[in-house]
C-alpha cells in the first residue's frame, strides 16, 4: 500500500516538469451565487434566488482546506454566521465548539447538527465525502426542524453521483504535526531557588540549602537531586498522519452512485512508546470509513435514494487514559528522577503517580473501538396521476453507534530518594533512603461497551409543486417521527412534527414562505408536550424588476425578511425530567443506624415542583440582502434580532435557605441577542489567471434580560442586563510594595492599610508583592463584593471574522484562509504556568521571569504577583491582572497546489486528472498571550501546526 502510494505521489511530481496545456481553476466556485442550492429541510431544494431564508453555504472547494480528521475541524474559518472555536486535546478527540450566531440562551447555544438532513454527529464525517455545508441561521431556515432548531443548524450534505458519468479517484496525504507551543518550565535549580524565594516571601526559612541547589545546578547527583525536563522526556515534537482515500462516483441512465473508502492512521507525540516488549503505548488513532450514496430511478415516477455510512475506528492511549499534559504542568523538575531504579519509576508522596514518563510508558495501554452504521432511505413517488404536481415522500433512517473499551492499564511501583544532612559533593548510596510506594499489578482485562446511540427516524408527506403562469406554488404536509436512545438514563426521546410548509412565488420576483410546525416531545411535562412554531418569510428579487433591466452591473439583488417563533423542548437544569410534579427519590448517604451491616437508603424529597411548566421560545427576526455585482462580487448582509423567553431557570436566587428543599425551576429567563453578518467575495478569471478574494464579518451580542438572579448587595455584582457569560473579576491596581510594609515585618497589617490610606484587603495575609485591588463598591473593604464585569465572555467571542485569498495561474495555485476573533477574553489562571503554588506545583520560566520579586529586583515591571508556596486567596482570583484580550488572528490554512496538465496525464492512458499539493495548517498566529495560544491555553495539549503533502489522481 505504502509503496503504491509513493509511486502515485512521485509520478505526478515528475510529470509536473512539463508545461500545462490546460488549466483548472479550483479557486473559483463552479456554481454562481444566485444558483446555489438552499435546503431548509423541505422535500425540495430551492435556488438562492427562490429562497427567502438566511443561509450561508460552504461549497465543496472549501470543505477540505485544513485536511483535518473530520468535517467539523475543517469548518474552522469557514462559513458566514458560524463561530467555530478550535478545541484542544488529542488529534482523535479534539473537536471545535460551534455557535450559529453566538451565545443566545441561558440554556446553551449548541446548534443542531445534521448530516443529510438527519441529526447526526459530524465527528466521523470526513471532508472527502462532503459536497457542501450549509449554515441555517434564521427562523425560516430552521423552522422545519421543530423543537430542535432554536439555536440554528449546520447541515452537512454528502456527495452523490451524476447521470452518465464515471470517475475513480485516489488520493494520499501525509501530514506532519508539530508541537510548537510546548510549555517551558524551570529547571531544578531555578525551581529550588523559586521555592526558597517563595518561602522567604512568606517569612519562612529556605527549604533548599546552597549545597542542594548547587547539586541541582551541576547535575552531580541526578538520582538524589534530579533535574528532569518532563516535557521533553515525555513528548516528541512530531506526529504523523496518513490518509488514503478511494472514491468511485458516477451513474448511468437511471442510476447514480457515490462510494468512498477512507483509511486514516495517526501517531501522536509520546516519546517513549516503544520500551515495552510486544506493545506500543503511543497515542494512535486508526479509522476506516465507507460511504455509499445511491439514487435509483425505480420507475419513471419512483425514485429511491440511500445514504449508507460505516465506521470502524481504534484509539490507543497510554494506560489509564492518563492526562499526561496535566502532569507535566504539575510535577517540578526536581521532584524525582524518571526512574528510581531499573524496576521502580520515580514518584513521591506529593505527586504519587503523576510521573508523566512512567504513565506514558510504564502503565500499559487503553483502547477504544468505535463502530457505526448510519443509513437512511427515501422514496419519492410522483402522484401526478391523481393531480398534476402531487407527489408522496417517505423516509426511513436508522443509525447505530457503539464504543467498546479495553482497559489494559496497570499500576507500577514508584519511589524517590531522600538524603539527610547533605553538605555537598557526591551522595553515596548508603546515605540515601529510597522510599517506595505503589505496586506492580498485572495488565488489566476490563472491557465493555461504554457508549452507544440508536436513532430511528421516519417521515411521510405529500408535496405539491406546480407553476401556473407566473405563480409558482410549492406546498408540503409532512409528519415526522423520531426516536433517539443513547447511553445512560433519560436519554430516550421521542419527537414528532406535523408540519405544513408553503412557498409561493410570483414571477420570480416576489416570494413568500409560511411554515406551521406543530411539534411534540416526550421530554416535556404532560400538557406542555405539544407546541406550534410559526414562521413567515418573504423576499423580493429586485434585479428581476423591469426598472432594473438596464442596470447591467447588478446580476442579482435580493431583499429578504423573516420572522418566526421557534419553540424548544430544552429541559431545565442538567436534563431534569421530573420538574413538574412533587416526587420522591431514593439515594443520598445511608446512615449507620446499626453498628454493622447494610443500611437502607435515604428517601429524598426531590426538587420542588414547577408551578406552571412551559417551554423555552425563541422569537427570531431577520432582514438581509444577497447580491452579485459585476459578474463576480457576491455580497450578503444580515441583521437579526432574537428574543429568547421562558428560559428555564432555577429559583434558588429567589427563595431563602429556610425553604429547605431544592428550589423549583420556572420559565422565567429572558435573553435578547442581535447581530450583524456580512460576507463579501470576489472572483475573477482573466485568461489563464484566476483569483478569488473574500471575507466574512460577524458580530453577535447578547443581553440577559431576566434570570431570577439572587439579589446582590451592590450593582457591580449584578449580571442581569449584561451579556450572557460576561466575565466577572476584580480590578487590579498594581502590587503592594516593600514601601507599604511600614514596620518591615514582611506583613502588611490592617494598621498599615490604614496608614497608607488603602481599603482593607484581607482575603489572606497580605505581603509585599501581592496584588492590590480597587474598592469597586466603595465600602472601604476589598472583598467578594468588589467583583465587577471585566472584559468580555471567555466562552464565545462577540466578533468573528475570516478572510481568504486564492490565486491560480494555469494549474498552479495558492490559497490562504485567515480567521480571527475579537471582543473575547481569557484568564491566565493555569497553575504552574500563570499562577504560582510553587511548593506543590511546577513553575514556568515565564512566570518566574515575570513575577514580582524584591530579591531579583523585579518590582516595577512585574506582570504577576510574588511567588507563593501555596495557592493564595489574595492573588489567585480572576482580576484585570490576569485577564487578557483573547482576540487572535490565525492563518488557518495555506495551500500551494498544482493540477497536472490533463493532456499530459491522460497520455498515461488511465489517469484522467492529477493534483499535488503542499499545505500548512495553523502556521501562524497573532494574539495577546505571551506564552501559549489564545485559542486554547491551560494545562492541555498545545495546539499543533501541521504541514501536509498529498496527491490525488482521478482515473
Amino acid at each position, binding site marked *: 500500500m505504502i509503496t503504491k502510494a509513493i509511486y502515485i505521489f512521485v509520478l505526478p511530481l515528475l510529470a509536473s516538469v512539463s508545461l500545462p496545456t490546460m488549466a483548472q481553476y479550483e479557486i473559483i466556485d463552479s456554481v454562481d451565487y444566485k444558483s446555489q442550492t438552499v435546503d431548509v429541510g423541505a422535500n425540495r431544494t430551492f435556488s438562492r434566488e427562490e429562497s427567502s431564508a438566511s443561509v450561508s453555504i460552504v461549497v465543496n472547494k472549501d470543505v477540505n482546506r485544513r485536511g483535518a480528521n473530520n468535517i467539523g475541524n475543517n469548518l474552522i474559518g469557514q462559513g458566514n454566521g458560524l463561530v467555530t472555536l478550535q478545541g484542544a486535546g488529542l488529534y482523535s478527540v479534539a473537536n471545535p465548539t460551534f455557535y450559529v450566531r453566538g451565545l443566545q440562551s441561558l440554556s446553551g447555544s449548541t446548534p443542531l447538527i445534521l448530516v443529510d438532513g438527519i441529526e447526526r454527529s459530524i465527528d466521523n464525517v470526513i471532508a472527502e465525502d462532503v459536497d457542501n455545508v450549509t449554515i441555517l441561521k434564521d427562523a425560516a431556515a430552521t423552522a422545519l426542524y421543530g423543537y430542535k432548531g432554536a439555536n440554528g443548524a449546520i447541515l452537512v450534505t454528502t456527495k452523490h453521483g451524476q447521470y452518465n458519468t464515471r470517475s475513480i479517484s485516489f488520493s494520499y496525504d501525509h501530514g506532519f504535526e508539530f508541537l510548537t507551543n510546548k510549555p517551558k518550565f524551570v529547571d531544578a535549580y531555578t525551581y529550588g531557588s523559586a521555592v526558597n524565594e517563595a518561602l522567604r516571601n512568606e517569612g*519562612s526559612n*529556605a527549604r533548599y540549602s546552597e549545597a542542594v541547589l548547587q547539586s541541582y545546578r551541576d547535575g552531580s547527583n541526578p538520582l538524589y537531586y534530579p533535574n528532569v525536563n518532563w516535557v521533553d522526556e515525555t513528548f516528541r515534537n512530531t506526529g504523523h498522519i496518513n490518509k488514503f482515500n478511494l472514491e468511485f462516483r458516477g451513474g448511468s441512465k437511471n442510476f447514480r452512485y457515490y462510494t468512498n473508502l477512507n483509511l486514516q492512521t495517526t501517531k501522536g507525540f509520546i516519546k517513549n512508546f516503544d520500551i515495552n516488549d510486544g506493545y506500543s503505548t503511543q497515542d494512535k488513532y486508526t479509522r476506516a470509513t465507507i460511504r455509499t450514496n445511491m439514487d435509483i430511478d425505480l420507475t419513471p415516477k*419512483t425514485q429511491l435514494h440511500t445514504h449508507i455510512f460505516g465506521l470502524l475506528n481504534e484509539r490507543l492511549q497510554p494506560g489509564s487514559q492518563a492526562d499526561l499534559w496535566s502532569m507535566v504542568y504539575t510535577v517540578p523538575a526536581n521532584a524525582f528522577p524518571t526512574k528510581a531504579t531499573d524496576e521502580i519509576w520515580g514518584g513521591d*508522596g506529593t505527586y*504519587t503517580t503523576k510521573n508523566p514518563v512512567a504513565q506514558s510508558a510504564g502503565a500499559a495501554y487503553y483502547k477504544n473501538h468505535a463502530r457505526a452504521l448510519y443509513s437512511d432511505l427515501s422514496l419519492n413517488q410522483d402522484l401526478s*396521476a391523481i393531480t398534476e404536481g402531487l407527489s*408522496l415522500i*417517505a423516509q426511513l433512517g436508522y443509525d447505530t453507534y457503539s464504543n467498546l473499551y479495553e482497559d489494559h492499564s496497570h499500576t507500577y511501583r514508584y519511589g524517590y530518594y*531522600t538524603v539527610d*544532612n547533605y553538605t555537598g559533593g557526591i551522595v553515596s548510596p548508603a546515605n540515601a533512603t529510597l522510599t517506595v*510506594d505503589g505496586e506492580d499489578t498485572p495488565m488489566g482485562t476490563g472491557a465493555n461497551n461504554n457508549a452507544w446511540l440508536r436513532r430511528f427516524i*421516519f417521515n411521510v408527506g405529500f408535496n405539491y409543486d406546480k407553476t401556473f403562469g407566473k405563480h409558482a406554488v410549492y406546498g408540503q404536509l409532512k409528519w415526522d417521527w423520531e426516536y433517539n436512545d443513547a447511553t445512560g438514563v*433519560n*436519554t430516550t426521546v*421521542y419527537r414528532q412534527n406535523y408540519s405544513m410548509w408553503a412557498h409561493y412565488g410570483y414571477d420570480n420576483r416576489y416570494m413568500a414562505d409560511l411554515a406551521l410546525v406543530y411539534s411534540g416531545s*416526550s421530554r416535556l411535562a404532560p400538557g406542555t408536550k405539544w407546541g406550534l412554531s410559526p414562521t413567515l418569510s418573504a423576499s423580493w428579487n429586485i434585479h428581476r424588476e423591469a426598472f432594473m433591466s438596464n442596470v447591467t452591473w447588478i446580476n442579482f439583488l435580493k431583499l429578504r425578511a423573516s420572522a418566526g417563533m421557534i419553540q424548544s423542548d430544552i429541559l431545565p437544569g442538567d436534563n431534569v425530567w421530573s420538574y413538574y*410534579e412533587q*416526587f*420522591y*427519590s*431514593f439515594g*443520598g*448517604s445511608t*446512615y*449507620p*443506624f*446499626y*453498628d454493622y451491616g447494610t443500611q*437502607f*437508603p*435515604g*428517601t*429524598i*424529597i426531590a426538587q*420542588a415542583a414547577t408551578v406552571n411548566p412551559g417551554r423555552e421560545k425563541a422569537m427570531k427576526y431577520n432582514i438581509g440582502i444577497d447580491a452579485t455585482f459585476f459578474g463576480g462580487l457576491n455580497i450578503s448582509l444580515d441583521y437579526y434580532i432574537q428574543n429568547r423567553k421562558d428560559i428555564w431557570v432555577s429559583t434558588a*436566587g*429567589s427563595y*431563602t*435557605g*429556610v*425553604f*429547605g428543599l431544592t*428550589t*423549583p425551576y420556572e420559565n422565567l429567563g429572558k435573553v435578547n441577542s442581535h447581530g450583524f453578518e456580512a460576507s463579501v467575495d470576489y472572483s475573477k478569471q482573466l485568461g489563464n489567471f484566476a483569483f478569488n478574494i473574500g471575507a466574512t464579518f460577524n458580530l453577535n451580542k447578547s443581553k440577559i434580560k431576566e434570570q431570577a438572579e*439572587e*439579589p*446582590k*448587595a451592590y450593582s457591580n455584582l449584578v449580571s442581569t442586563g449584561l451579556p450572557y457569560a460576561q466575565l466577572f473579576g476584580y480590578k487590579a491596581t498594581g502590587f503592594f510594595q516593600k514601601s507599604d510594609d511600614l514596620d518591615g515585618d514582611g506583613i502588611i*497589617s*490592617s*494598621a498599615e492599610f490604614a496608614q497608607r490610606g488603602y481599603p*482593607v484587603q*484581607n482575603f*489572606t495575609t497580605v505581603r509585599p508583592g501581592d496584588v492590590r485591588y480597587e474598592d469597586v463598591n466603595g465600602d472601604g*473593604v476589598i*472583598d467578594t463584593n468588589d467583583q465587577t464585569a471585566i472584559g468580555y465572555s471567555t466562552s464565545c467571542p462577540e466578533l468573528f471574522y475570516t478572510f481568504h485569498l486564492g490565486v491560480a495561474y494555469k494549474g498552479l495555485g495558492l490559497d490562504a484562509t485567515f480567521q480571527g476573533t475579537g471582543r473575547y477574553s481569557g484568564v491566565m489562571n493555569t497553575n504552574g504556568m500563570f499562577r504560582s503554588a510553587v*511548593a*506543590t506545583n511546577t513553575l514556568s520560566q515565564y512566570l518566574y521571569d515575570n513575577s514580582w520579586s524584591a530579591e531579583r529586583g523585579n518590582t516595577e515591571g512585574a506582570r504577576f504577583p510574588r511567588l507563593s508556596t*501555596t*495557592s493564595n486567596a489574595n492573588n489567585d482570583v480572576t482580576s484585570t491582572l490576569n485577564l487578557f484580550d483573547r482576540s487572535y488572528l490565525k492563518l488557518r490554512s495555506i495551500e500551494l497546489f498544482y493540477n497536472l496538465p490533463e493532456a499530459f496525464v491522460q497520455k498515461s492512458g488511465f489517469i484522467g486528472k492529477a493534483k499535488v499539493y503542499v499545505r500548512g495548517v495553523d502556521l501562524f498566529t497573532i494574539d495577546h498571550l505571551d506564552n501559549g495560544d489564545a485559542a486554547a491555553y491551560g494545562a492541555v495539549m498545545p495546539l499543533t501546526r501541521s504541514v501536509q503533502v498529498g496527491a490525488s489522481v482521478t482515473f
Partner: protein
Amino acid sequence: MKLNKIFLSVTAGLALASCGDKMNYHEDLRLDHAYIDRNFEYVGGFMNIIYNDLDTDFGNFSGAMLSSATDESEFSTAGNAIEDFYNGAWSPANPRQTIWTKAYEGITYCNEVLDNWQGLTFPEFELDQDYAKKIHQYNNYQYEARWARAYYYYILVRQYGAVPFKTHNLTGAEETALPRTSADEIFKFIDSECAAIQNLIVKDYTNLGDMAYGSAEKGRAGMFAVMALRAQAALYHASPLFNTSNDANLWYDAAKACQALIDSCEASGRTLAADYSQLWGSGEFYANANFYNEVLFGRRVAASNSFEGYNFPVGYSSGKGGNCPTQDLVDAYEMTNGKAINEEGSGYDAQNPYANRDPRLALTVAVNGEAWPTDIANTSYTTLQTYTGGYHARPRTSYATPTGYYLKKLCNSSQILRSGYSTTSAHVWLTFRVGGAYLNYAEALFQYFKSQGNSNAADATNSEFRHSAREMASKTRLRAGMPAFEAGMNNDKFWAKYKNERRVELAFEGHRFYDIRRWKEDGDKFMNIHRAVITPIYAEDGTTIASYTYGQQAVTRGDGRWQEKWNLFPVPQTEIMKSGGAMTQNSGWE
C-alpha cells in the same frame, strides 16, 4: 398505482401505531406519596436524611475544623477559609455558614415526616412476624423527628441567635418572608419539645426488650439524647450571650435540666467510659459497650479515612497536617499533681515539657519524637520529626505543622493511608456525652449558686442540689487519673480551673468555639496563639541529634483583637436580601 396503495397503507399503519403513548415515555423512577407509603424502609429513608443533616466537624472547611479558628489548633495550610473567622474577612457577604442550609433542610424533612407520614399502618406487612416491632420503631420516628428539629434549632440559635422559625412547611414565597424569631423563644421551643417527648421516645435503642429485632439500631436518638439536648440548650440559654438580663432563673432551669440528665444517666448505668481514648480510637469502636455507656448521642459517619487524611502528619504518606494543636492547648494540660505548669511547685521542666503531664495530653496531641500514627513504623521516617527542619516539619516539608504538634484526638491511630494498604474505619462525632454533661452540670450549678450571691459557689449545695459544682467538675479528671479539684477555691479561681478543665476534656469536640462566645470571655485568646519552636542540638558528629531546646513563637491573628460581633454569625447577606427585609442582621454585622 399498486405501489402507491401499499405505500399509503404502510405509512398510515405506522402513523397510527407509533403516536400516542410514546409521548408519555420516561425512564426515571417517579416516586409519589402512594409509592413511598407502602413500605417501612421507604418512609424510614426520610430519617436517613434527617440524621445525615445533623452537624459534625471532621473538617468542614477543606479539612479545617472550627477548632482551628480557636486557640486549640492552627490549620497547616495557609489561606484556608477557616482564617476568615479571625482575619476580618468574615462578613455577611462572606458568612462562612456551616449549618444554615443543612439545618433548614433537616427541619423541612422533620416537618414533612411529622405532617405527612404519620399514622401509616403498612397493611402489606401485617402478617410479617416483625410487624409489631417495625410499627413500634416507625411510631418512634415522630419523636426522633421532633428531637432532631429541636436540635437543629439549637445549633441555629447557637450560631445566629434569632432565626426564622417554622414547624410546618409552607411555600417558597411564604418561607422566604418569615421574620426571625427571638433566641429566647427558640430556646423555649427546644425546652418544651424536649419536655414533651422525653418520656414518649424510646429510652434506649440498645435495650428494646420485646421490641428488639434484627441488629439494634443504636445510632438512633433516644431519651438520653433528648435530655442531653435539653440540658445543653438550657445552659446556652442561661449563658451571658443569650441571658442578657442575667436572669438567675435561667441558671436554675439549666441546673435542673442538667441534674435530671445526670440523675437519669446514673440510674441507668450510663457513666463515663473507663478510658478517655475509648471515645474514639480504632475500628468499630462504637460497638464497644463502654463507648456506648458514655456517648448519649453520637452523630455517626460512614467508614472513611478522610479525617486521618486531613490530620495525619505531613510526610507520612498523604497526611496533610491539618488541625495542628497549639502550644497554648499543650500548656493547658496540668501536671499529674493537679497544678498548672506555671504554678508554684508544679515540677514542670521546660526542657522536658511532656513529662508528668495530664494523661489526656498524650491521648490528644502527637509530639516530636513520637511514633504516630502506628503505620509510621512502615515508612522511611519512623518517628515524628517536628523540630525545625525535621522531616515532618517546616521548612523541609510544605504544609507541615506550623505549631510543632499533630492532632491525635478523634483520629484512628491504626489507620493506614499508604496506597495499596489503606484502611477506613468508623467515626462518631461526639454530639452529647456524659463527660460533657458533668461539666455542663458543674457550670450550671456554679453559676446558679454564684447568682445567689454565694462566694464559694463551687462547693455550695442545698436540699435541691445535693452535689457541688466542684464534685461534678472533678468527674472527668478522676477518670483521666488526675486529682479532683480541691475544695475551698474562690469563685474566680474555680471558674478559671473549670474553664481549663472544659477546654482540656472537650478539646476538638467543637465546644470551645462556642463556649468562648456564649461566655463572652477570653476571645482575645483566639487572636494570640503560640507555636512550639523545637530546635535540635547536634552531637559532635554533626548529624546525630543529641537533644532539643524548646521555645515558643507568638502568632497574632488578624489585628490580635476579638470583636464583640463575632459572638454570633452574620446572617448571610443574600438571605436577608431575598427575604425582602423580613430578616434582619445581627448587631455589629450590618
